């Protein structure tokens, strides 16, 4: 795959358009077919292969325009204007164009031939021209390029240097200065600086003037490189650092996540829930439609000499996951419970059959709260209403039994979130046994690491026999894995 396309796809991915490798291959085929010559055609064609939702199309449009910004036509026109102006000096030309110049990424300029023509007449000091020409010969390639004011060539050199120093890998904004310097070094800034020093040492108006022009040219070059790095950064890097932070957040322990990150975590949790739901939600509702399943009927009735005696109907019934969650919200686990509740809230939004309960000393249902209030409020209410008092598992399970035990059937998945620290009180494992016997699946999520289980007042070992699964759950990654498991086992 060629580099330009690869970079473009990377930029798209960076902008949250999901591009699979298969689609990347398609894109490559498309480019083979339509080529880079017709910008609109390329855009239309790629828009069919890469973005796959209306939202992504918008992002694609923007990214494409940014990425393939270098517009040859404008370039030509500007060069023509420069020729027409005639007396314009090289440096002002450069400055005037600095603002408009696209940070050329996509292609070489065709305007260069026109430009070089313009610049010869453009030099104001005709008397020194011959002498200057002699001096120019001795300068470094970069200096010559700058003096020639060949913007296209500078753009190309800049892009090449960017390529050489791996600008594509730019990650966070603090690297911008570093990359700008590297690019300049690669382009030969040092030689240019030397040239300026050398020229200043010499006598003569021509040399001094040339040095001055070089200095101005260098300023222009610096500005250009900075702009270029900036634009590349916007394309390739994770601009606000959100990806990086999401990544770190999802791996750090829930208890270590600070309050200011809650909003972000909330967003992640919602995203996660959505993704899981998209994967797991089923719409199978075909049940007893009254359609005769001829294949099965024939097979079944072979024994009766082919007389359709035992009739089979088509019936498929797949249940949506029915989930009951019991959440410890007492002080010791409150932080984790926060996330668990958040997750349950998100699940509630997308899945109809989630019942949530919260407890510390006593237990109560919070499904209604979740349904009526927005997430912040619902969680705050839950915590104030049920989060006071010390944990009493026996009592809480007793409450749960009165409230909801009858609703638990062989299709229900029960999730308990708690550290199983019952303050040396009666843990109430016999109720846990009842739940276990009735439910399809019982899962215990413990925010503590395994080696602290059964230590001090933790009674995990008493509950463990009555759970189908016991898991440590203290990071978002854990949570995601677990919920995926719940959805799979429940479907």
């Amino acid at each position, binding site marked *: 795959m*060629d*580099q*330009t396309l690869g*970079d473009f796809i990377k930029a798209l991915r960076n902008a949250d358009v*999901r591009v*699979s490798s*298969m*689609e990347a291959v*398609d894109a490559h*085929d*498309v*480019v*083979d*077919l*339509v*080529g*880079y*010559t*017709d910008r*609109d*055609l390329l855009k*239309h*064609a790629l*828009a*069919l*292969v890469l*973005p*796959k*939702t*209306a939202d992504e*199309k918008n992002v694609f449009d923007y990214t494409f325009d940014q990425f393939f910004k270098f517009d040859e036509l404008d370039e030509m026109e500007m060069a023509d204007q420069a020729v027409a102006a005639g007396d314009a000096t090289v440096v002002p030309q450069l400055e005037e164009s600095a603002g408009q110049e696209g940070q*050329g*990424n*996509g*292609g*070489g300029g065709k305007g260069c031939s026109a430009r070089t023509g313009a610049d010869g007449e453009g030099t104001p000091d005709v008397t020194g021209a011959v002498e200057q020409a002699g001096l120019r010969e001795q300068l470094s390639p970069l200096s010559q390029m700058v003096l020639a004011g060949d913007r296209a060539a500078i753009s*190309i050199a800049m*892009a*090449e240097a*960017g*390529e050489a120093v791996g600008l594509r890998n730019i990650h966070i904004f603090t690297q911008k200065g570093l990359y700008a310097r590297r690019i300049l070094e690669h382009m030969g800034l040092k030689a240019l600086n030397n040239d300026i020093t050398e020229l200043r040492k010499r006598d003569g108006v021509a040399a001094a003037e040339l040095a001055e022009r070089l200095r101005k040219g260098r300023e222009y070059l610096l500005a250009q490189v900075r702009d270029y790095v900036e634009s590349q950064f916007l394309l390739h890097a994770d601009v606000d650092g959100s990806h990086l932070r999401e990544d770190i957040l999802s791996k750090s322990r829930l208890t270590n996540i600070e309050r200011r990150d809650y909003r972000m975590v909330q967003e992640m949790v919602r995203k996660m829930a959505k993704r899981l739901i*998209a994967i797991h939600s*089923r*719409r*199978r*509702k*075909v049940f007893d*439609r009254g359609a005769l399943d*001829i*294949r099965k009927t*024939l097979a079944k009735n072979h024994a009766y000499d*082919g007389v359709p005696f035992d009739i089979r109907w088509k019936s498929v019934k797949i249940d949506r996951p029915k989930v009951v969650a019991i959440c410890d919200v007492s002080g010791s686990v409150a932080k984790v419970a926060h996330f668990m509740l958040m997750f349950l809230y998100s699940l509630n939004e997308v899945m109809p059959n989630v019942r949530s309960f919260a407890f510390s000393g006593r237990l109560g249902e919070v499904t209604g709260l979740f349904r009526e209030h927005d997430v912040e409020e619902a969680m705050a209410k839950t915590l104030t209403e049920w989060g006071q008092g010390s944990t009493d598992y026996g009592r809480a399970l007793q409450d749960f039994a009165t409230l909801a035990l009858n609703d638990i059937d062989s299709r229900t998945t029960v999730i308990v979130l708690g550290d199983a620290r019952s303050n040396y009180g009666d843990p109430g494992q016999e109720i846990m046994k009842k739940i276990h016997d009735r439910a399809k699946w019982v899962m215990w999520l413990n925010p503590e690491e395994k080696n602290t289980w059964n230590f001090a007042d933790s009674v995990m070992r008493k509950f463990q026999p009555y759970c189908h699964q016991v898991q440590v759950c203290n990071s978002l990654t854990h949570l995601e894995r677990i919920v995926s498991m719940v959805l799979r086992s429940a479907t």
Partner: protein
Amino acid sequence: MTAVKPVQGAAANADAIEVIRAGFEKLGYITNPQISTSIFLAQNLEKPLLVEGPPGVGKTELAIATSNYLGLPLVRLQCYEGLDESKALYEWKYGKQLLYTQILRETLSDVLQGAQGLAQSMDRLHKFSDVFFSEQFLEERPLMRAMRAPEGAVLLIDELDKADQEFESFLLELLSEYQITIPEIGTMKAKVKPVVFLTSNNTRELSDALKRRCLHLYIPFPDAALERRIIAARVPDISARLRNELVAFVQELRALDLKKLPAVSETIDWARTLLLLHANTLEPEMVRNTLSVILKFQDDIEAVEAQLGALTEGALKAAERPLGTV
């Protein structure tokens, strides 16, 4: 970065797209560059084309126009909840099978004549075992019909989002390999790959696996210029003035907050209605009487009626302005 690969025939391909555009226009389907490019790519990459967009922007029409354009038969599969492979792909002709077993029962003794012992009889029967699950008993459904069409076909899988998720997964083999597997017979590969269109109204998100295998075309509501051309193509008898006015009016409606925005098909219907009523220009009274053609909810109609005068006036003004400023 600057490597511009000279692709052979890139210009020729641009021409090919232009040819497609002109061809579709002749058939009365006005395309934007995006649409004609999509048809071109679908043909050349041999990939199915997934068309999404609000209802009534011509998703299904596109498939029909393509079938006309290519001169291939259109095979249409309307999706609905509960659609399964026996209705989409193939079914055995059970009735015929039963009938034949009954009829052939008599001949069974002939077949078995002279056979000695059970083993030999079984052997003889095994020779006939596949008879009942052969092509004679195969009932073709749309997907298979499209795959087996000798000249190729245009396959339209309409409103895929209405079908169950399982059906979507079932389509994957067909969409990526252009082949289908029938347990009793084996794998069938399309002789000529059909041009496949899938449409979706986005009532639910289609799976990534499916989207990955398709080109994705999103058809939005057309802008005023395109819509004028569409009306001109579909309702050629209407006067240019009225056409511009009614398009401007509909464009205004789309900017409002309505339950269901009027689509192109509704604009066309409205144009026909106005033509039938011999209207020359938009008048508030006539608009009021025919509003039910473009708006399908009472709430919407009431909301628009309240500001009918202003809207009509705006449309009349907009129609006079040259297109660039609309």
